[in-house]
């Protein structure tokens, strides 16, 4: 079995595993992730609490599962947001050119001038820390990437003969854009959306770690990691498990992203 194939299977199974955990976490957890049992605090992994308990005696496994649900929902919504608005802005900008293009590009270039983390931090401190704030901030931070990619493909597509042919048939510009152009530039968008999912997850964790993400007591991998810091010496599992979740998910998504990229590149097909 080739390395490519191994990576493909590893990536897909990791992604599938965490998706299942996240979906379960949204509906059911072994224990209430928010229930405090101070008498059980900082218990090591063992029967009853498979992954131990934290400083308030909350079940780490339940919290990790709930956190997976939150993280995956936030990342999905964020990616959908940036892809949706990025497609609109990019398609308009690439198809209309002229002043529309210049205005949109000025906007995205300004956004690009800030590191996405810094931009999200700034937006969050304005909007306050809550889940919708995180989604809007991250969505905006990742918008320029999608816009630029879409604009690029639309610009090359609009010179294709079949686009000209569509215009020659007298189709209105909106029709040509929706029916011929956007479906044909989806491939690269899906590819960056996959990899974006990973970086959004990471940024969201980082924000939570810094205390600017989803506010406690709701668990996320990032704020669990942050909360584990003072107890590193007494309860090392508190840091290890959320950290492992983040890195394994990212590894899975990156490998899966490579697979998606290959699938959409016709030259790689059949290899």
């Amino acid at each position: 079995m080739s390395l490519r194939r191994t990576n493909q299977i590893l990536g897909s199974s990791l992604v599938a595993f965490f998706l299942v955990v996240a979906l379960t976490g949204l509906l059911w957890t072994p224990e209430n992730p928010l229930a405090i049992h101070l008498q059980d605090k900082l218990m090591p992994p063992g029967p009853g609490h498979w992954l131990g308990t934290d400083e308030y005696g909350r079940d780490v496994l339940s919290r990790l599962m709930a956190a997976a649900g939150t993280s995956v929902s936030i990342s999905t919504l964020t990616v959908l947001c940036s892809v949706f608005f990025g497609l609109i802005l990019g398609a308009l900008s690439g198809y209309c050119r002229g002043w529309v293009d210049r205005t949109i590009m000025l906007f995205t270039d300004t956004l690009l001038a800030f590191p996405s983390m810094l931009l999200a931090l700034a937006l969050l401190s304005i909007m306050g820390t809550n889940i919708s704030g995180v989604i809007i901030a991250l969505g905006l931070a990742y918008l320029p990437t999608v816009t630029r990619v879409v604009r690029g493909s639309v610009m090359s597509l609009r010179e294709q003969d079949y686009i000209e042919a569509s215009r020659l048939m007298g189709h209105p510009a909106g029709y040509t854009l929706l029916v011929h152009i956007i479906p044909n530039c989806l491939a690269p968008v899906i590819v960056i959306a996959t990899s974006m999912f990973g970086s959004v997850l990471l940024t969201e964790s980082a924000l939570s770690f810094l205390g600017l993400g989803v506010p406690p007591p709701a668990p996320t991998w990032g704020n669990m990691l942050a909360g584990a810091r003072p107890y590193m010496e007494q309860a090392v599992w508190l840091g290890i498990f959320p950290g492992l979740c983040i890195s394994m998910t990212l590894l899975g998504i990156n490998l899966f992203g490579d697979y998606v990229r290959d699938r959409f590149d016709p030259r790689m097909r059949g290899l």
Partner: protein
Amino acid sequence: MTDTEILLSVRALELGLVSPNDNRIVKSASFDLKPGEVLGLVGESGSGKTMLGRSLFGLQPGVVVPYGGDILFQGRSVLNMKAKDLRQLRGAEIGMVFQEPMTSLNPSMTIGRQLNEPLQEHTDLNAKERRARILEIMERVGIPAPQDRLDDYPHEFSGGMRQRIMLASAMLLKPALLIADEPTTALDALVQRSVLKLMLELTKEEGTALILISHDLPMVAHYCERLLVMRQGEIVESGVTADILATPQHEYTRNLLRSMPERGPVRPFEDTDQPILKTRDLAVEYKSRSGLFGKVDKKKALHGINLTVRRGEVVAVVGASGSGKTTLGKAIAHQIKTSAGEVLFRGQAVKKGSATWMDYRRNCQMIFQDPFGSLDPRFTIRRTLSEALYHEKDLSRSERNERICTAIEEVGLGIAHLDRLPHELSGGQRQRVAIARAIIGRPDFVIADEAVSALDVTVRAQVLELLSNLQHRYGFSCLFISHDLGVVEQLADRVIVMRDGKITEEGARNQIFDTPKSDYTRALLSAIPKLNRTETGVVLSWRFDEPNMTTEAVG
């Protein structure tokens, strides 16, 4: 014949892909080449001619490997040669000229340095001698004032000049064999002939043997003493050129010769016939601005064109590349902005948003050159055709279906093709779909921009015949834009010759082809050989002597 007289001997060569299934690219190819001989290798795309040519000096891609046979160059086996010996062979003993003059020279190196490289690698000449040799060969390939141009970069030369430089660099070391793979395909017809002529003169002077690889049978036939015809990896016919042309043995060769365009019948058109389309002083200007506050630069691509297309008439627009013929087509189709003048359709000015605009859109259709780019890759053929009926909103479902089925059958494809995607069809089939899309709405006027230029010779003949049949049946007028005069001679009723965005000459087809008035038309015509059919085959001749144009003027 003894072995010493043979420069290159290919014996039962088999080339194939490195893959388990038996996928041979070249099957049992054998031929000999004597020193100084000129050999033509003709075949359509995918015939394996390029792979065969490249394998002669071990330049085939890594996935292509020899499965049997041998290549002997001056008695040495090329297939068993070590990398070091191969390097010595390439350049010094076997030179190569590629198709694309735009990419075969390094854009970031001056011409002088690029020509210096092979000399430095393969000879012991000192810098001064090398420079002298470079200047000598540049002079020889017809580059004026070579000493002033050594420090120029490739982009400062025209395509023809670049191909001359390629030729100079291949001939610098006076190789025993020169392989030219489609050396003039990317060049204008005018430039083509002069570059080929130069190549033949040079190889003759140096006693270099030449293998000319091309899809263009008449062109190759005219220059080569001997000919190999390849098809699907097999050499189906080989022999003396004149014999092959006069009495072709293999069915495929006969088919190739039959596919050569020939003059169609004369159809009468009166000046009083109602014009379907007219342009009045049509002009197009491109503006470019250098920087934010820079001066606006205007470049005229079309200068006030007046032309008339009558009902049912096929008007061809010919000219070298850059003559503005494609711009003219786009301007008439209103795909680009015109800066002056107007287009009259059935006597009424065509304007965006006017009452007649949608009528014009429906009645003016276009067939594009590239069959790979003109169909939406995600649309099935059925959907593409159905979309072309977009405006006929009152069609019922079954009527629409019927129209689509009729259209696909009219272009020689079956209903089975309707549910395929473009990438599942061949180039010729795609072009048929593009034609079906253009004519399904029964337009009165069709613009065909190089509609058959990207197709192989035999496929081209079929598509041309199809186009001509449909034109006879439905009587639409056609503006046929092409650089290929042979095709134009077959199809056109009237010909418009363009140069630098202006009409140079205009007239009935026979008049333009037999008694051209302008020197430019004469030069264009002189670049393509004329075919005279005999009972069994063809005889080639040139129409006019080569024009007395300076090298600078032609390229």
